[in-house]
């Protein structure tokens, strides 16, 4: 297991090149929290249950992502600012397949 590089564009459009562990069952929402790329209370409000959409991300690189689950799809159907490449960060777990992933944190 090794670390991978991920590029995150925060809500102020600032790009952060960060290193993410692949062996901690960490998801993208937790990664954003760990690096403090969004203010506390504006990300992962429900704790990662796909129940609030506060961790909505736009995936901008061309990666094969884990398939979208029913709960995630339903939550995105209620969320605002949803685009074709929207996903909930809490539902995407970091693995070596996501090497060089790039994503943007959706507006609040």
């Amino acid at each position: 297991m090794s670390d991978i590089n991920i590029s995150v564009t925060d809500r102020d459009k600032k790009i952060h090149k960060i290193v993410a562990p692949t062996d901690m069952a960490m998801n993208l929402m937790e990664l954003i929290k760990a690096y403090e790329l969004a203010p506390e209370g504006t990300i992962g409000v429900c704790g990662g249950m796909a129940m609030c959409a506060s961790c909505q991300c736009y995936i901008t690189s061309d990666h094969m992502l884990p398939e979208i689950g029913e709960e995630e799809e339903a939550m995105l159907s209620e969320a605002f600012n949803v685009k074709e490449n929207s996903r909930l960060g809490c539902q995407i777990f970091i693995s070596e397949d996501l090497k060089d992933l790039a994503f943007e944190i959706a507006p609040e």
Partner: protein
Amino acid sequence: MINSDIIIIGAGPTGLFTVFEAGLLKLKCHLIDALPQPGGQCSEIYPKKPIYDIPGFPEILAGDLTKNLMEQCKQFEPGFTLGERAETIDKDENNIFTVTTNKGTKHQAPVIAIAGGLGSFEPRKPALENLSFYEEKGVEYIIRNPEIYRDKKVVIAGGGDSALDWSIFLANINADVTLVHRRNEFRGALDSVEKVIELKNQNKINVITPAQITQIKGKERLESVVISKENKEVEEVFVDHFIPLFGLSPRLGPIADWGLEIEKNAIKVNTFDYQTNIDGIFAIGDINTYPGKLKLILCGFHEATLMCQSAFKIIHPNKKNIFRYTTVSGIDGFDGTRKEAKKPVVKALND
């Protein structure tokens, strides 16, 4: 004016448990919460999800935890101001605080416990022109008093549990309900979805999907909404009420203006008694921060317990407080009830 010993801002699990701990010290509490029901996130976001780290409960649904906490603190007769947001805090020359809500309700106490979680839950509003003009004039985001919808024409928008549950509830009190959702699928408990389908088949709920509200109209108050379907069909419906239920998101809100030391959207406290930089104002549960802080319900319970000890000293500076176990002393409720251990029977066996 509502008077108590401790004003608790936030009626989530930490706030509710504070009532119990304060009650043991014979301190009376009054809770204020922006949501119309107690329980905080546990009742608003995930009532049907299990929690596995409440000591003594291998598994408990968040909604059941709320119910249990309400039951546990009941005998200490807490007061509630629900559906109102604590807006301002003033301190007078006698060190008594006055907390005023956005609806103007005033509360007075010598101690404040802020148990506000992530802040107050504010509705997520759809992007519709002139929406704010119609707020409280036919557009409501939180249902505080369902009775006002009886026999009325109501359009609900949203696809989650609250949209489903309120559609069912309002249809059952004879409101003429139209439920509009962007997709054909709803995200909710299976029994709620099935109930809506049943009511739809009985023509008691009009379900329009996939569709969105794209316009709201009216002169003095809301008169109609425009529903645009995915197939480009457009329909104008005359309504008395439009209730968009797109969930709530927490905002620190007025808490940021109370002169408290804030760090990363949380209130800084000491770890002796979780008091803030303002004497007499404590912050407990998810809203506070200190080195090593973990946002867990069980940590909120601990913080509430220690906080009440200091609150007692502020409220009764000349009284001695003796620490007791509930098993030993029992519980004397403010409602006159008493709970205590059964007395052992002392009886010789060979009588």
